[in-house]
């Protein structure tokens, strides 16, 4: 157990060290010179100075990541919520097939979708645009959102809505005053996870962003694609970890963890 957790969070320690290193050569276990002692000599921003400067484009990447993630989440929610209601409550011909189709994006390679979409999007002018990326992000996020919302809806006894109706509430009042508030924790968890999936997507963003739209994963990928890691890459990797940590804390604190994620 301890080993497993060490395996999962332990590597963040050297990453942190690397981000503060100026020179850290093999076989030293600590840098021979730290970034803060070297920074005065440097003519251009080094390490964290670079990471936190506008030149690193980190701010832009964070902003894009959050923006795309939020928009994807909202649209995904708007599409999936009504569908989840039907899927959770009704039975209809072809339902199983439809549900299977909905989970297909989980098993179809991202590369296939990304490469095909980029061909499509170039033709309709969506490539390299926020709209294009957001639309593309819907594909891998929908299966999760639908699953989670369906589970949430299944967990909600129809009785509550019916009770509201019997008490004199109109359909919309029942939805507004009873159904939505009761679904809220589940909806939030779904949104959280969708946001997470979206912010973790690399290939789709990369293929459809055409280098014009950078997000945390694409920025970091560009930094480490050669298979090496300098101080500024380490810094960016750490920053790229932050949104996840924030979401994790929120979900652990307020939403009974990510447990709903496993829907069924």
């Amino acid at each position, binding site marked *: 157990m301890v080993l497993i957790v060490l395996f999962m969070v332990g590597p963040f320690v050297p990453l942190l060290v690397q981000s503060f290193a100026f020179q850290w050569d093999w076989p030293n276990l600590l840098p021979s010179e730290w970034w803060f002692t070297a920074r005065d000599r440097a003519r*251009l921003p080094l390490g964290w100075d670079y990471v936190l400067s506008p030149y690193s484009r980190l701010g832009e990447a964070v902003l894009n990541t959050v923006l795309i993630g939020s928009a994807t989440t909202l649209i995904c929610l708007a599409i999936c919520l009504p569908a989840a209601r039907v899927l959770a409550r009704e039975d209809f011909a072809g339902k199983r097939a439809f549900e299977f189709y909905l989970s297909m994006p989980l098993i179809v390679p991202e590369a296939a979708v990304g490469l095909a979409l980029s061909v499509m999007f170039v033709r309709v002018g969506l*490539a390299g645009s926020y709209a294009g990326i957001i639309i593309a992000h819907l594909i891998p996020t929908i299966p999760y959102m639908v699953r989670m919302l369906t589970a949430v809806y299944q967990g909600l006894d129809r009785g509550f809505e019916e009770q509201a109706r019997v008490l004199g509430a109109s359909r919309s009042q029942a939805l507004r005053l009873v159904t939505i508030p009761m679904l809220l924790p589940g909806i939030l968890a779904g949104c959280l996870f969708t946001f997470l999936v979206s912010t973790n997507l690399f290939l789709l963003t990369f293929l459809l962003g055409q280098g014009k739209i950078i997000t945390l994963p694409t920025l970091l990928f560009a930094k480490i694609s*050669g298979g090496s890691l300098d101080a500024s890459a380490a810094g960016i990797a750490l920053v790229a970890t932050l949104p996840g940590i924030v979401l994790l804390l929120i979900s652990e604190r307020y939403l009974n963890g990510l447990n709903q994620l496993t829907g069924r």
Partner: protein
Amino acid sequence: DEAAAGFQDQILAGDMSWDDVLAQARVDGEVQFFYWGGDDNLNVWMDSVVAPAMAELGISLVANRITGTKDAVDLVIADAASGRTIGEGSVDAIWLNGENFYTLKQQDLLFGSFAQLLPNAANFEWDEADPRSQLNLRDFGTPTDGAEMPWSGEQYVCSANRAVLPVEQTPRTFEDLQAYLEVNPGKFAYIKPPHYLGNTFVQQVLYAFNPDGTGATPFQRSIEGLGAAELARLAAPGFEYLKDIEPLLLGGPQGAVRYPEDAAAAEGLFRNSEIHINCGFGLYAVATKRADGSYPQTAEEIIFPAGNMIKNKNYLAIPANAPNPAAALVFANYMSSVEAQVTKLDLVGYPAGIDPWKLDPADAAALEAAAPAHYGVTQDELDDNIAPDTNASLVEVIEATWLEYIERGSSLPLEEIVANAVANLAP
């Protein structure tokens, strides 16, 4: 876009004053520039020096950092394929050279012959008669035809870590290197082709082992001119050498040769003394990399491979479907200004793309003053060992040959491999 097409016709016909171009550029308002974003120093310079300068001209510079120059070329092609012509594409300017320029040129996707129309064309040597004009007129052997503007010079320079490699053991030739590796197996690696740095290393090997002893010269010809069989003959000894040293390269002694993927990876190996010599483009690399911590403080430049250190230039090209062609021209003009060249040399350490002898003395002096220091070698020694690039049409063939012969370890005779590569690459 008819307006843009009109502009293109006018400017290329020389019917337009620079002031008109400037005015039109302000109308364009922005310029979409695509460049390899893997160098933090360059990024800083681009954002802190170039962007403000462009803003002063009323143009906002959108500097798109890409991981591979080819991505931008692909974009141009994809745009063109979906019917976007001048004024409608998404790329205004690309920092490129060699293959990528060759591709655009082949596909007829370049804006036109603009280079000599720019005011700062005065900073370059265009006289065919002067051999020093070669790098402005030809890019990897491909005539530039003014479709791209020289922007930066580069020279392939290797560095040694003096902490592990004493001066007296420093190799000057490939044979020296092999001897060194016999004693220190695994302590060298070159970047994996088709990365251009890897390609460059391979080209230098081919020059050095040219069986005719004519060095780079035959490699200046295009593949049509040279022919596959002749290329195979010229390249065979070089490839033999590459094959021979493979077991002595990084990881070779352990049975699994490793070619680093890019410059950053190679630098990491060099920092950790996994390799003793690191090669790449970068006349002033030691200075800049010592300063930013990516090289050990004991790194020095060396002369290797003596006489075959490829020197070239890289360029700014404007695609045929540039959305803001006027702004792109203004941008290209700025980038070849003395001011831009001086700050670039100073901050990024990229050698000047303009030709000092064409400048007035004050400017030339400023440029010289801005140049970072050399460690272990002098500028003259470096100047004395240069060689030209290989013709772009050969590069792809050589690259494919390397992949087949070295990486995949094909047992086919080299001639056949080269022939296949040529056949495959024919459109």
